[in-house]
């Protein structure tokens, strides 16, 4: 049944997003710490822009912009001989070779592509939050530890990879676990990106069905949504447990309140 497989869509989204979120988060955090001013400005603009705009507005706008942006670039790369304008009135027309994905490719390619655009939009938004957390965590590592490393004669690169980064995780984990909880609860918004997730199927299957359907029934959406509520509660509950375990593990040997408690 589609309703059951759609639960997997939620997990797939989380699985696809998390690496990208961390990637964007690190890029953003490092950009903000960069000694090159334009990088710093970029990092600050990225994190504060996402902080200022509701995520739903991002989701309404970013995927379609990404889609057209990618096709625009491919159009210029692949069809330089094309003379007609790309914007013809309201139409956005690129040559067939620049279509993403290619027009004739099978349906599942289109779907997967749409799914990845949605995931990318998610990653951009939550990457900015992660950048904030990681930036704070990098700044929270006690200076003395870094100075000690420097006194041992480590290079800047060594200090970063061997001391700064590993030590940072202790400070980043509470923020990141909070971010994960927010991410879980943002997944129903997938539905607005046109991905057929659990919310879509809950509305579709729960809506009243007339006798045209094999199983006519009234408005069952309330029931379906209660199932979703339980699903999300379980997911949050399980995540909280995993994170508290992880926190204990990562704080081992660290002189923090979490570790010594």
């Amino acid at each position, binding site marked *: 049944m589609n309703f059951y497989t759609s639960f997997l869509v939620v997990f797939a989204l989380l699985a696809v997003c998390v690496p990208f979120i961390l990637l964007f988060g690190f890029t953003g955090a490092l950009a903000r710490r960069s000694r090159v001013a334009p990088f710093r400005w970029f990092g600050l603009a990225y994190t504060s822009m996402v902080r200022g705009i509701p995520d739903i507005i991002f989701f309404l706008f970013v*995927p*379609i912009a990404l889609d057209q942006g990618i096709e625009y670039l491919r159009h210029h790369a692949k069809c330089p001989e094309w003379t007609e304008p790309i914007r013809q*009135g309201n139409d956005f027309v690129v040559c067939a070779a620049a279509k993403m994905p290619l027009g*004739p490719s*099978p349906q599942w390619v289109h*779907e997967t592509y749409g799914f990845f655009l949605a995931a990318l939009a998610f990653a951009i938004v939550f990457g900015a939050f992660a950048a904030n957390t990681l930036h704070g965590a990098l700044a929270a590592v006690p200076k003395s530890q870094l100075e000690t490393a420097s006194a041992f004669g480590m290079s800047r690169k060594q200090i970063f990879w061997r001391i700064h980064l590993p030590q940072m995780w202790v400070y980043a984990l509470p923020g990141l676990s909070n971010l994960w909880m927010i991410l879980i609860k943002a997944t129903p918004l997938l539905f607005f990106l046109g*991905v*057929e997730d659990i919310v879509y199927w809950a509305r579709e299957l729960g809506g*009243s069905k007339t006798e*045209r359907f094999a199983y006519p029934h009234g408005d069952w959406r309330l029931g379906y949504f209660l199932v979703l509520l339980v699903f999300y509660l379980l997911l949050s509950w399980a995540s909280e447990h995993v994170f508290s375990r992880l926190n204990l593990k990562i704080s081992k040997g660290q002189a923090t309140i979490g570790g010594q408690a």
Partner: protein
Amino acid sequence: MKLIKLLGGVALAAAFTTSAMADGHAVRLGTEGAYAPYNFINDAGEVDGFEREVGDELCKRAELDCTWVTNEWDSIIPNLVSGNYDAIIAGMSITAERDEVIDFTQEYFPPDPSTYVAAAGASMDAIKGNVAAQTATIQASYVSDSGATLVEFSTPDEVVAAVKNGEVDAALADDAFWQDIVKASNGELVFIGEPIAIGGGIGMGIRESDTELKDKLNAAIDSIKADGTLSTMIAKWFDGRMVKY
């Protein structure tokens, strides 16, 4: 914007048929999938309904190889013009407003009047009270202009629920859409007032730059009108309604 929808199992099935007729021209048809009997998602999770049959027949005659995608109603036009699919076949009335942005084929369904529906026992004044309609439909504009209090819902389901539970006094939608619902409500819902003619017939929406596809589909619609196939389909899906072409 809502992008391409993930159609689960249907998609795979569609993908296999696609490769089987590889010489055809690939066309993606966008529909809403929530407006029975025009288009809806059946229990197997596939696009079904009057427009599914019409669309498949048109594609066969125009030698196009078509796949179905569903998209939320309120972003169905932006996704057409940005090229996420090639044609809209979603019970869309031909209106001047829409015609400025996209092109339409000739109609494959005659102008369908819109009707008000209210809970049993409602007076005629209901249509001047709080009236529900789906956001961004011609009915929503009509209600707003009529002087009644417009209450907008994002899906047809919510419109029906709102009349049933008394949230609103009446609701306005296509007559064909109501037929099933009113019948299934066991007298709970009734038609009130006279049918109103708003909007033109129903046609397929095509990008303005895509004249080739428009010509092909127009020719195919001519052909199903000429040999009576279309009339048979309309009679099948709309309770024996007779339409002569």
